[in-house]
């Protein structure tokens, strides 16, 4: 009997939306990541600094509690302003690099190593969808330790300090969310590109760490040997720090201007996107 006579009929029931289908990938990835003890531990550790900052905000707004300990002087020290949030963002940036190095490489590398891309792309999924879905995993995860606690701290401060403070400093909230989103975008691109570049999860993790730490070292080396300041531009962390300083209205450190930093980081993201585009092809490598 011919196979077609068995009466195959394709499914013609209702389909979920494109976005829902796209979110299936991050949903499974998040569940898998949350099963990893190390990810959970690092997430918990990443929350310590925001908690501490929350404590600072509370104390800064309840100086009476500190009367016995020279409260007014201490209050001046922990004034909640752009500088305070810059330090908060800078610390969380370190945790986010570690988290990205731990979780990012497992997103694309195994698919490439196991020739799984043709499987993905044989479904109604474009390369852009695939990258978007993989990026969503990191964006979701990194948001938990960056702009979400940052925004929470900002709201906490606004509610404690009152409307006047909020009216004068609302731009800090925008800067925290915007600045962290820029950072997450850069970090995700780096992590995904490293993951696609080397195929091996472990090596990709080392590459993410190396990317940030070695570039920071090289930038410092260029600046100190050549007695210049443009070397800062090749240090993504420092360049982002300069951009954040400008966004938060804090004195910008000497060296490249925020716009120069924006241009270099944008160029970096374009290069990373090109590498990703080149590496993510639906071909099977026979080895």
């Amino acid at each position, binding site marked *: 009997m011919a196979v077609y006579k068995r009466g195959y009929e394709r499914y013609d029931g209702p389909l979920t939306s494109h976005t829902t289908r796209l979110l299936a990938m991050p949903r499974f990835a998040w569940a898998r990541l949350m099963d990893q003890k190390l990810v959970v531990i690092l997430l918990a550790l990443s929350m310590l600094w925001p908690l501490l900052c929350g404590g600072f905000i509370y104390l800064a707004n309840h100086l009476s509690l500190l009367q016995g300990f020279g409260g007014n002087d201490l209050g001046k020290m922990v004034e909640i302003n752009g500088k305070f949030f810059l330090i908060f963002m800078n610390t969380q940036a370190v945790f986010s690099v570690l988290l990205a*190095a731990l979780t990012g490489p497992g997103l694309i590398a195994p698919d490439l190593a196991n020739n799984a891309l043709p499987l993905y792309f044989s479904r109604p999924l474009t390369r852009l969808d695939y990258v978007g879905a993989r990026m969503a995993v990191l964006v979701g995860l990194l948001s938990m330790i960056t702009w979400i606690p940052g925004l929470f701290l900002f709201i906490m401060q606004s509610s404690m300090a009152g409307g006047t403070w909020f009216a004068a400093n609302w731009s800090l909230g925008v800067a925290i969310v915007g600045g962290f989103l820029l950072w997450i975008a850069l970090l995700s691109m780096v992590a995904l590109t490293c993951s696609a570049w080397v195929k091996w999860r*472990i090596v990709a993790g*080392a590459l993410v760490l190396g990317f940030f730490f070695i570039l920071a*070292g090289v930038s410092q*080396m260029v600046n100190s*040997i050549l007695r210049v300041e443009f070397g800062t531009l090749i240090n993504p962390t420092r360049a982002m720090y300069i951009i954040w300083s400008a966004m938060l209205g804090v004195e910008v450190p000497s060296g490249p201007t925020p716009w120069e930093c924006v241009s270099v980081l944008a160029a970096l993201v374009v290069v990373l996107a090109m590498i990703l585009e080149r590496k993510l092809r639906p071909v099977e490598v026979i080895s």
Partner: protein
Amino acid sequence: MTKFRMRQAWTIARIEMHRAFLSKRAFWVYLLAILPAVIFIGHGIEMKLRESRYQGRGVTPAEVVDSFTKGEKVEDVLKRAPKPVEDHSWSYRRSHEDEEEEGETNKKRRISERVEGRSLTYFDGQRRVQVGFENGVLIRKHSDTMKNFEEDRTVFAGVFQYFYLRLAIFFGCLGIFMNLFRGEMLDKTLHYWFLAPARREVLLLGKYLAGLVAATVIFTGGALLGFGAMLWPYSGAEMQAFWSGPGPSHMFWYAAAAALGCVGYGSVFLAAGLLLRNPIIPAAVLLVWESINGFLPDLLQKLSILHYLQSMCPVAAPIESDTPALLRLILSPAAPTSRGLAVLGLLAVTMLVLWAASSAVKRIEINYGTE
């Protein structure tokens, strides 16, 4: 039998060295190793070119250059020193707010004015002196020594300790030593070694030797190349004094620190590659630990490989330039350990780590499916 095992270990090392030195995957390690030398050479070339360019344009006596004072007019400066090596002019608009009386109230008014800027650079044979003018009046003066040996030596110390030891050797050893076992797991080729008539400890020793020889040659070579590149622009009496004085000892200790860095970090990463499925986690922890080490109490500072390596360095490194001011306040570097103790300490730690690695290698099983 022991002699045979040693020969076996050396055979393994020879086979593995090929991979450690020539594998395409390891080429970035060479880049890390020679990067300081490349930048120092670039710096040397730039200094030499600028010096010859300035000398061609004219040398202004030091006493004349020193006589420039703020408030002087540009014409007076040019009369005394007519041969600047660089002369740049520009103009821009500057605005500021001014208060003006209008009836009974003061009113703020934004005033915009045109500013003529000019910068003259003089060279007195040693120093480069920049004088800046606004509307023809000297408003700032800045001088720096074109070739400053002491400064370059300090810069090299900083580069060596903060970049070379902490990052280049760290990541280089991470790549080389983890590749020895974990890399073979990923390539699915480790079983060939396990099927050889050699004890696992002999295999470990052979592989460690291979990694060590490769890392030491690459990074000690890189350190010496960097040191040479730093010295290259200098000549004459300065160099003679250096080589007849502390020069050879400095060179030796930089090379020794680089080599011992490979010994220490190498053993740690070899063991991490054997003990853990994902060795990046201990690597990240170690990296963060070594990075924050300077901010820790004295005792904890001594629990790091970097502390002992830094203790061997002949010149103290300056505090990193981009360390925030607040953190600089709490930075209190632990007193360096004596060199002899540092070397012994590092070797003892290495032996301990290798012992742990040798008991791990005996337990390791071939199970590529889960890699």
